[in-house]
C-alpha cells in the first residue's frame, strides 16, 4: 500500500492542479502583465509602465466603486449573519423544548424549505425580479403597495438608495443558505446543554446569546469569509438592475462592473487588468485579515 501512495496522490492531483494553473494562475499572471500595458483588447500590446495605476488613482469612479464594495463588505456579512442566525434559532430552538427535545417554532420544517428557495434561483432571474420589485413607478411592486397619494419612490434611480437596494437583494438571496448552514451548526450542539440551561431557568433569549452563539462561532466565521467574498463581486445584480449600469452617475458602480466595462466596452483591457490587480490585492488582504483574526481566536481558545 505504502509503495503506491505517491502515484496515487499525484494521480489525484494532476488534473486539478493543471486546471488551476491554466485557468487561475496563468490568467492571473497575464492580468498582471496586461495591467502594465495600454492594450485595447485587440491587436498588439504596448507597455506603459504604471500609467494605468496613476490613472486609477485619479479616477473618481474607481474610488466610488471601492467605497461601494466596502459598504457591501461591512454590511452584507453583518446583516445576513444576524438575520440568518435569528431565523435558524427560531427554526431549531425557538419553539422551546417539550418531551425532552428542543424544537423550532410551529411549521419550521416548511419554513426551512422556503428560506432556501432564493438560493435555487439564478442570480440573473433574481435581478430581473427585483428590478420589478423596485420599479420606480406605480407598476413597481413596492410602489404599487404604497398608498396612491404617495409620490413614487425611485429606488434604484435614486443616487442615495441605489446601493441600498443592491444590498437588500444580496441579503435576500444569501440568508436562506446561511439559515441552513447555521441550522446544521445548531443541530450539532448537544441537546443536554440546552436542557440543562432551561432547567436552570434560562429564557429563549439567554439560550440564544449564552449557548447558541458561542457554540456556533466557528460556523459564523466561515460564513463571514464567504459573504465577504460575495461583497467583492455583486456584478450580476449591478449589471442587470441598475440605471445605466452602475448609475445614476456611478452611484451603484462596483469594481467588478468597472473591470467588465473597461475590458469589453471601453476597449481598455490594460486598464481593466489594473483594476483586476487591485481587486486581487483587496481580496487577498481581506482573506489574510480574516485568517489573522481567527488565528488569534484559536490561540485564546
Amino acid at each position, binding site marked *: 500500500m505504502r509503495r503506491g501512495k505517491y502515484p496515487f496522490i499525484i494521480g489525484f492531483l494532476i488534473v486539478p492542479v493543471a486546471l488551476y494553473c491554466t485557468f487561475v494562475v*496563468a490568467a492571473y499572471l497575464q492580468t498582471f502583465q496586461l495591467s502594465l500595458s495600454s492594450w485595447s483588447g485587440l491587436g498588439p500590446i504596448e507597455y506603459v509602465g504604471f500609467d494605468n495605476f496613476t490613472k486609477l488613482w485619479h479616477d473618481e469612479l474607481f474610488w466610488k466603486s471601492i467605497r461601494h464594495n466596502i459598504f457591501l463588505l461591512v454590511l452584507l456579512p453583518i446583516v445576513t449573519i444576524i438575520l440568518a442566525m435569528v431565523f435558524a434559532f427560531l427554526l431549531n430552538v425557538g419553539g422551546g423544548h417539550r418531551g425532552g427535545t428542543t424544537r423550532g417554532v410551529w411549521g419550521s420544517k416548511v419554513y426551512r424549505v422556503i428560506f432556501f428557495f432564493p438560493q435555487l434561483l439564478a442570480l440573473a432571474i433574481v435581478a430581473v425580479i427585483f428590478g420589478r420589485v423596485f420599479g420606480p413607478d406605480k407598476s413597481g411592486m413596492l410602489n404599487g403597495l404604497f398608498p396612491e397619494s404617495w409620490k413614487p419612490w425611485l429606488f434604484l*434611480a435614486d443616487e442615495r438608495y441605489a446601493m441600498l437596494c443592491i444590498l437588500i437583494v444580496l441579503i435576500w438571496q444569501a440568508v436562506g443558505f446561511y439559515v441552513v448552514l447555521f441550522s446544521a451548526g445548531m*443541530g450539532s450542539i448537544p441537546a443536554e446543554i440546552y436542557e440543562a440551561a432551561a432547567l436552570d431557568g434560562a429564557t429563549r433569549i439567554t439560550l440564544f446569546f449564552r449557548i447558541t452563539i458561542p457554540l456556533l462561532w466557528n460556523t459564523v466565521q466561515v460564513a463571514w469569509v464567504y459573504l465577504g467574498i460575495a461583497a467583492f463581486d455583486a456584478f450580476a445584480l449591478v449589471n442587470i438592475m441598475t440605471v445605466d449600469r452602475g448609475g445614476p*452617475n456611478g452611484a451603484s458602480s462596483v469594481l467588478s462592473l468597472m473591470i467588465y466595462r473597461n475590458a*469589453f466596452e471601453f476597449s481598455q483591457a490594460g486598464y481593466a487588468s489594473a483594476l483586476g490587480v487591485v481587486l486581487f490585492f483587496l481580496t487577498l488582504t481581506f482573506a489574510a485579515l480574516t485568517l489573522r483574526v481567527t488565528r488569534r481566536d484559536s490561540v485564546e481558545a
Partner: protein
Amino acid sequence: MTEIFTQPAVDRRTLLRRAAAVGLLATPAVGMLSACVGSGSDDSDQEQATGTKSADNPLGIDPKAGVEIVIFNGGLGTAYATDVDTPLFNKKWPDAKITYSATEQISTVIQPRINAGNPPDMINNSGSNLMDFGAIVKAGQAAELTDLFAAPSLDIAGKTVAETLVPGAIEQGTYNGKPYAVNYSYTVFGLWYNKALFAKNNWTIPTTWADFTALCDKIKAAGITPFGYAGANASYYMVRALLTSAGKIGTEQVLKDIDNLKPGAWQADAIKQAAQAWGEIGNKYINKTFLGLKHTEVQLQQNQDKVAFYPCGSWLENEQAKDTPPGFEYAIAAYPSVTASDKLPATAINAAAGEIYFAAAKGKNPQGGKEYLRTMLSKEAALGFTKLTKSLTVVAGASDGVTISPGLTSANEAVTKAGKDIFMGYLFDTWYKKLDDESRGAVNDLMFKGGDAQKFCDRMEKASQAVAADSSITKFTRS
C-alpha cells in the same frame, strides 16, 4: 454539502483558506476572459480561401469554400439573414455552405474568437454588447472593403455597389480614408408619436419650439405625459435628440467638432441652446420615474397612449410590433426648430446608416464574407430586409413604391421632405465609448434633475478633453 462545516474533523483554518481561494477564483481575470492574448496577430498566416476573379465572380471567391456568418439577434430579428440573404447567396453559389449563428452578446462571443485567430467570416457587430469597431480596425481585424464597393451590384445592372447606396453610407464605415464596414440599415431619427391619437385630439405636429411647448401643455392637460425616454438603459436616445437639435441650430459642423474632440466643442452656443431647451422639457413635461425605466417599459407606455412623444430611430415600429395595439399608428416628426435663427429648416432630420456588418480580415474566407455583404447590398435582399424588419436600407430606393407599414411610410416621407437637409449626425459614441457613457449620465442629469444646461456642457467638455488627453485611446477624425 453543509455537513462538512459541522464535522469537527474538518480543520476550520483549512476551510477558511479554501474559502479564500474560492474568492480569488471568483475575482474576474481579464486575461482569461479575453482568451489567448495577442495570439491573433502572431499566427495570422492561416490559409484563406480564394478563387479566380471573373466578371461573374468579381471578388474572386472560392465557390466551394464555406462562409461563416454571425448575426446579432436584436430589434431587427434574424429572419432576414436566414430567409432572404442566405438563400440568395446560395442561389448564386450553391456549393458554398453558409454556417449561420446568432447571438445577443456579440463582443463576448466574437472577441475571444478574433483574439484566437479564428473569427467568423462575416459579423454583424451590433447591440448593447457590440465590439469597439474602431479598435477592431486599428488591430487590422476588419477586411478592407474597397473591392466590394467597386464590384458591380448583384442585381442593379450597370452600377457598382457603391453607386447603388444612399449618400454618406460608405463614409460612415470609413476609417482614416478606407472603408471597413457596411452600415446596412438606414435609420431615420425623430420624435415618434401615435398618429391616430394626435388626429383624435386635433393635435398638430409642431415646427417651432413655442408650438412644441404649447402642445406639450395641451397633452399634459389631457392627462398624458407629453415626452419621455428611458433613463435606465436608453438615455442615448435623448443624447441624440439633444445633439440633433444642436445640429439644426448650428449645422452638422457642431457635431463634427464634438467628434474631433475639438476643445470647446461642447461649450458651443448651439449645444448650450439645445441643452437649455431640452432641459426645460425635462423640467416640465417628463415623468420623473422614467429615469428608472428601461426602453421597452417606456415604449409600452407609449403604446398604451400614456406617453405622447418618444425620441427614437425608425427601428421602433418593428421592435414594438407585438405590443402595438390595433389602431395605433406610428409616425415620425422632425425635431422642432429651437430658435428662429436655426441654420437648418424645421424639416431637417438626422438619418444615418447603422448596423455594422464587416468581413473579418483574418478569418478563413474573407472574400466569401465580402460576397455575402454584396448579396445583402442587392436590391432584392434590401427589399426583403425592409419587408421583414420594417427598416430602410442604405440601398437607395430599394423599397420605393412598396407600402409596408405606417411608420415606415412616415419615415420615408420625412426623408423626402428633408431633401438635402439630412445629416448623418455624430460618431463619437462609437469612436469613444467612454465619452458615450458620460453623455448618457449627463443627459439623465439634465432631463431628470433640474435642467442645468451649463452643467451639462461643462461635464461633457471635461470628459471630451479627458479622452483627448488619454494616449491609450485611438483617435479618429472626420471632416
